[in-house]
């Protein structure tokens, strides 16, 4: 089966006042059509930058310095801005973490919804409106005609995220990148949105690249999981095998340090130390200062991403 998306050795650096920040430092992974792939990792590990890189939306001072991004067999990393504009919102679309700020506050919801349709589908204004209202209904917004004429601030967070989803799906994209779509929401609302995404995924036949730091969300939604640490992919697995038998010590730590409702442990497992700042990474394996199983070799040289069984892992233990 053809890969929908294949990222090869992607490097995205930020050239800041205080030096170069290698936020994404050689990320490779692939995604199959129809799958929901989750990208997990702690704050600052480069998940968002990876997704922006795919969309070529990394703003200055960031730059993609190396790597290939194949979408449906085309290397879109080489695409011109014009060609990317055709792709964005049409073939690949995106929803963001902050539904509060991701909508333009001075434009009406309808305006912003119509915009995508007018851009990518040859619809008249009237048709676009009808389509937009239909989409609003599909994402479970009551009285869509009324919401169509509202301003973003008149909507609650959950509603806004629904609008964002409607906007992202209105051109039936092949790939939907969801950058922490539920992090800013309350649990009950989060559950609503996750359910919505699950339902819509089958209806629109969209593959989802789900970015999150919440393993719960991964467990709910993902088919495949890519774990990132400090700008790199350290483990890539099928969701079930990852939870059953995490390989990388970081993944292990991550899973066991999450408090669980079902179990009753006295002390949580915890990973000592902090995620290193991207411009301050240790030598060798970036995880070694925090790794309970670190060996000498971990301090000096960086392990390769090794494939095995149903996935890959980057660790000297294997």
């Amino acid at each position, binding site marked *: 089966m053809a890969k929908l998306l294949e990222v090869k050795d992607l490097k995205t650096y930020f050239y800041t006042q205080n*030096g170069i920040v290698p936020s994404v430092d050689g990320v490779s992974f692939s995604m199959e059509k129809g799958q929901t792939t989750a990208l997990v990792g702690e704050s600052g590990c480069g998940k968002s930058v990876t997704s922006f890189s795919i969309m070529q939306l990394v703003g200055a001072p960031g730059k993609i310095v190396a790597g290939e991004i194949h979408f449906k067999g085309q290397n879109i990393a080489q695409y011109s801005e014009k060609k990317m504009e055709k792709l964005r919102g049409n073939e690949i679309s995106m929803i963001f973490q902050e539904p509060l700020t991701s909508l333009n506050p001075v434009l009406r919801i309808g305006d912003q919804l119509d915009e995508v349709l007018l851009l990518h589908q040859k619809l008249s204004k009237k048709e676009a409106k009808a389509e937009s209202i239909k989409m609003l209904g599909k994402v479970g917004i009551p009285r869509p005609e009324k919401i169509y004429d509202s301003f973003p601030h008149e909507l609650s967070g959950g509603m806004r995220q629904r609008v964002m989803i409607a906007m992202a799906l209105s051109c039936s994209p092949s790939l939907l990148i969801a950058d922490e779509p539920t992090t800013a929401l309350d649990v009950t609302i989060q559950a609503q949105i996750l359910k919505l995404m699950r339902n819509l995924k089958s209806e629109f036949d969209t593959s989802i690249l789900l970015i999150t730091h919440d393993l719960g969300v991964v467990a709910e939604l993902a088919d495949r999981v890519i774990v990132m640490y400090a700008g790199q992919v350290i483990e890539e697995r099928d969701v079930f095998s990852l939870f059953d038998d995490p390989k990388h010590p970081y993944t292990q730590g991550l899973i066991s340090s999450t408090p669980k409702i079902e179990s009753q442990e006295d002390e949580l497992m915890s990973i*000592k*130390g*902090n995620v290193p700042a991207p*411009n301050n990474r*240790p*030598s060798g394996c970036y995880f070694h*200062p925090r790794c309970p199983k670190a060996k000498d070799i971990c*301090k000096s040289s960086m392990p390769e991403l090794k494939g095995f069984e149903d996935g890959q892992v980057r660790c000297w233990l294997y």
Partner: protein
Amino acid sequence: MESNAQTEPAIYKADKYDRSIKSNNKLIILLTKISRSKTGLVGLITVLSLIIVAVFSPFIAPYDPIKIDTSKILLPPFWLEGGEISHILGTDNLGRDILSRLIYGSRISLVVGVLSVIVAGAIGVFFGLIAGYYGGMVDNIIMRLVDAFLSVPTILFCIVFLTVLEPGLPTLILVIGVTSWVLYARMIRSETLSLREREYVKAARTMGVSNMKIISRHILPNVMSSVIVISTLSVAGTIITESSLSFLGLGIQPPTTSWGIMLSEGKEYVATSWWLATFPGIAITITVLGIIFLGEWLRDLLDPRSQGTNS
């Protein structure tokens, strides 16, 4: 970094592009930061030179700035025909040396600039803190006072004061100071309002720290950077105000020299002896530019967001 206490600090990847400051020495950090902003550096050098010139005027100036020499009236700068090397920037309509007058004039600009900003700052910070911290009626009254001052343009306000009061340097400083305190008050008030809601102020309150202590230890130091920035920027404004007032004949009076006076005395000669008004004009412009650069750079420097989190 947290682990560093226990774990040996890792050998950091040497990155030739890494420009983050490694030193802990404050001076080195400061100097590095200064050297990174060209305009900031220009501003700093300009302001420092201005201060040096003002302080050491008697030693730097080649002539007495009020010495009249009728034999050397309106000499052009030395590079022009008829100019003399002894009067580098020429002389004015009373034969006084322009360069010396410029040098001495810097004193007034600086004194007026700095002192009136101190006056304004002191009043403004006081009212701003009180209004912002205590809120309610006190705030309401102070803010109406602020509105009152804001609804009359500064220059007009200065003029009203100066029409009534005995002229002179102290008056001028006081008037400019008193008419421009609102800038600080408004800024400090709004910062205090938000600082008051900051969790660390709340934390101090839950610990029973007294209001005066909270204001002086938690709020004042955190508004200081804004105060410094506004101050530098308003020194620039003040210098222009002083020269405008002197231009209108309401500021410093001759024979004291200020750039504003030189400009207003020289404006008559703009068409015939351009150097009289041009050099003070340039001096004002350069000074103000320098101060603005310095201020903008200070603004960046003191902005907590730009204080690189080296964690």
